[in-house]
């Protein structure tokens, strides 16, 4: 599949595509409730250039349409977040990518290889960490890693080297002879991550890796993921902890009720705001009447002091596109500016805007 495919139109229940592309029919949920609009997706790469290439993927469990004509891509060597409410279809998509489930419709390719037809090749290239502790608790850490390294066909010398490396990376070297059943939750999660790395996969699929971890363990896990990205791995991470994903990920896909609501760069998502651009101005000393002076600028729609601080939130008039133009106007006020930056939305806000309310 080396051909360049045309961009896929944004997916939305409001724009479900031709009926003949929906072999399983529309989701009963979607037919009852209006859905929030999906955001524009980026043009797709050729399938063999993407780390993950998913096109028109559908999967149904009995009467429940878990995933409905989903299309998105993950670029190589990126850290891609995959978020959605409970029951949105995240785990189903992950299992379809990692070959645990067979796609009923559509295609999934990992580094150009079809998961349905080239299953063994795909399995050699991926490392999947499920959302539960999938471990042999009666083994020690090294026995567990040695078993998986041997199962992947590594010889003894390579096993010594690889296991040493992954234990060092996950900071588990000191507990290598401990029984897995005696480890804390955070440590078991690290062992799980170490297991995923023993066959040196290009693509890591992590399902809720930070779930149930304490703050320290979460921070440490995120550090490990950053290190892995620097090593050139592609990481596809499903998580509910949006603040950490926003910091960590280059790109993100938001899924809700089996439909993709957004897929693209994280920054694009956070910068997108339908009405206004918001900036934050910080000054080094008190400036009496600054709010009024800011409001007097043509570009400014509103200006407000943030909670008695020396910071101001400035909303621009619609049509004001350029950061430089506003900055020039603010500089013209001759005030002691400490910082001036565009205020991004929180991922939580984007998530709430794009997904429907209610418990699934």
């Amino acid at each position, binding site marked *: 599949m080396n051909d360049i495919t045309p961009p896929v139109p944004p997916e939305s229940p409001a724009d479900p595509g031709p009926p003949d592309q929906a072999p399983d029919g529309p989701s009963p949920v979607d037919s009852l409730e209006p859905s929030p609009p999906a955001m524009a997706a980026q043009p797709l790469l050729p399938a063999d250039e993407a780390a993950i290439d998913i096109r028109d993927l559908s999967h149904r469990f009995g009467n429940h349409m878990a995933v409905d004509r989903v299309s998105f891509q993950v670029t190589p060597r990126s850290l891609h977040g995959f978020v959605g409410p409970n029951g949105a279809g995240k785990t189903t998509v992950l*299992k379809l990518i*990692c*070959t*645990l*489930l067979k796609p009923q419709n559509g295609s999934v390719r990992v580094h150009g290889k079809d998961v349905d037809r080239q299953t*063994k*090749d795909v*399995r*050699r290239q*991926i490392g*999947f960490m*499920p959302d*539960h*502790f*999938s*471990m*042999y*608790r*009666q*083994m*020690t850490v*090294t*026995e567990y*890693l*040695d*078993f*998986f*390294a*041997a*199962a*992947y*066909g*590594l*010889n*003894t010398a390579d*096993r*010594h080297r690889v*296991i040493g490396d992954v234990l060092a990376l996950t900071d588990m070297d000191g507990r*290598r*002879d401990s*029984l897995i*059943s*005696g480890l804390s939750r955070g440590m078991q999660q690290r062992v799980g991550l170490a*297991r995923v790395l023993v066959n040196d996969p290009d693509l890591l699929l992590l399902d809720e890796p930070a779930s149930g971890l304490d703050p320290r363990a979460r921070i440490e896990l995120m550090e490990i993921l950053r290190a892995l990205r620097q090593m050139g791995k592609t990481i596809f991470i499903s998580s509910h902890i949006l603040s950490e994903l926003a910091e960590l990920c280059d790109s993100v896909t938001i899924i809700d009720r089996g439909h993709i609501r957004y897929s693209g760069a994280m920054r694009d998502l956070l910068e997108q705001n339908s009405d206004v651009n918001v900036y934050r101005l910080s000054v080094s000393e008190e400036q009496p009447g600054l709010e009024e002076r800011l409001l007097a600028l043509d570009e400014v729609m509103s200006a407000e002091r943030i909670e008695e601080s020396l910071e101001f939130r400035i909303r621009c008039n619609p049509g004001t596109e350029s950061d430089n133009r506003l900055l020039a106007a603010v500089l013209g006020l001759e005030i002691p500016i400490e910082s001036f930056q565009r205020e991004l939305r929180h991922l939580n806000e984007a998530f709430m805007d794009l997904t429907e309310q209610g418990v699934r």
Partner: protein
Amino acid sequence: MLRGTLALMTRGLRFDCRRWQMHALRFLLVGFFLLFLFIAWVSSLTALGSAPGLDFFWSITFTNYAFVTLAGMSFFTSTITEEKEEQTLGLLKMAGVNPLGILLGKLGPRLVNALLLLAIQFPFVQLAVTLGGVLHRQVQAVYITLAGYIVLMAGVGLIASVIAHETRRAALLVSLAILVPLAAQVFVYGIFSSVTFSTGVYETIDWFSIWSVVERLRTVMSLGFDGSPIGRQFYTHMAAGAALFAVSWLVFERCTRQPHSPTRSREVSHNVRRRIRFRSLGTAMLITAPVLLAVLLAYSHVRSAVTGIAFQRVPTYEVVVAVCVTLAVGLPIITLIVVAVRPTAEGGDIGECWPNARSIVWKDLNFVSGGAVGMLARFSLYSLITGLIAFVMGVLSGDWDPTAQAAWMFGVGLVGGTLELASHLGRSLRSEVQSQTLSTLTLLPRSIRSLLWAKVAGGLASLIPAGTMTLIGGAFTFVPLMTDIATDGNTDSLVGVLLVLMTVVVVVLEILVFLELTAFFALTIRWGYVVLALICTYFMNTTGWIVGALLSLGGLIGGSSTGGGRIIGILAVVLPWILAIGITLAVVVALYYAIQSRIRRLAGQS
């Protein structure tokens, strides 16, 4: 207390109503009854049986006996352990339900279910009286006997469930509690048939038979039974059941105070496993073999020197006992010496696992079958059993025969090995489901078929002790037999050889069905998978034999009436066997694909 107990009982009864396994078990029992009724009807038509009612009732009685025994090993053993495994026992205590309430509330529904299963049969078995050969009094006595036995099994299952941390261990305890006295009884009756004992021994056997439900059933089913429907067995079983319940109550708090933490025991087993490796066991076996030979030669020469009897090529029972005891005791001692002398390998555990698909064999062999320690224990156990057979035949019955010894070894090895392999396969697959590791295992770059075969290979590797016993026993049993038949040369002998070969094929296929059913049930139910597979295989086997016998009979009658003569007679005997092989093979293949499909499905769900 009453409210908590009632709530637990209601929940238990509702839960059992929703479980398909319970309904499947009831249907299976009904299937057995219909089958027995059919046989009785055919017997009455062909005048093969003198008392079809008695035949029918015997079959039902012993099926019930088998079901109750198996229920004791599985159904009652999870009474408390299921709460322990789900970590809900503490919640029940916090809800204010006291130990007596928990025991009553948990055991009650199971006991009610089991007794109801017995009670609903009662009107139907009156048919046996109509068919002839059985009296109402005998029917009543049998069902009262079985009711008492159920109460005893419930008590045994309950105390095992209170003491053990897991259902698996509870089932093992109950199995030992049932099988050890039963095996002892079989041995005692085996000796009893050929040796005259002192009065004390007979009295002991009589006392022992009070506990034996089999003995009571034999008494009740004997011709002209006119005793009381309620025998001593019923009272003793009821009393024992109550006593076991009381003991369970007394030890409940002590046994359930601390939540089970397996880490400590796992640490101990890890340390033992780390020291005693297969390498050490192999070295010990290489050292033990010449020692055994030395023992054998020394004993034979000393014996011939002392008794003056010339050296014999066929070993005597004393030699067999001496060799077996030396192996059972010597092998562990030599292994320990090897372990003490051998320096601990550098580099920890890395590199221990066998590469590629064999890694799964290594994992299962070490973590399901107990590794080198388990292998060592099984070598000692099978050696002791072989020695015990020789001892009982040689010393107690005074009738030692090498061929009979070999046949016993073959039988024990085959049954033990099959049960071992079934248990290994079941535990191996069940543990993958319980620890949610099927998904990571199936993501290895190999097919589910290859994973499954690796698991079978792990089980087969653990069968070296049982396999050795079976091979030795089989060689000394069947080679002379087959040689005699084959050298005889006439057509009947050749048909005989063919029938023996087909019997072997059918037995092998039935063993495969049993193993596959165990694997399938292990992926479906949490406990009792081996027992359920055993029941299903027994049902299939019984049905097959009956249908085969009827087909043969029909063929023979048809052949004689049409004057077909000898050829039709041979075909009438051989064709049912071919049919049996075909059907069993089809079941084997269907189950093989069903297991793979089940693994794929569970991996996708986990």
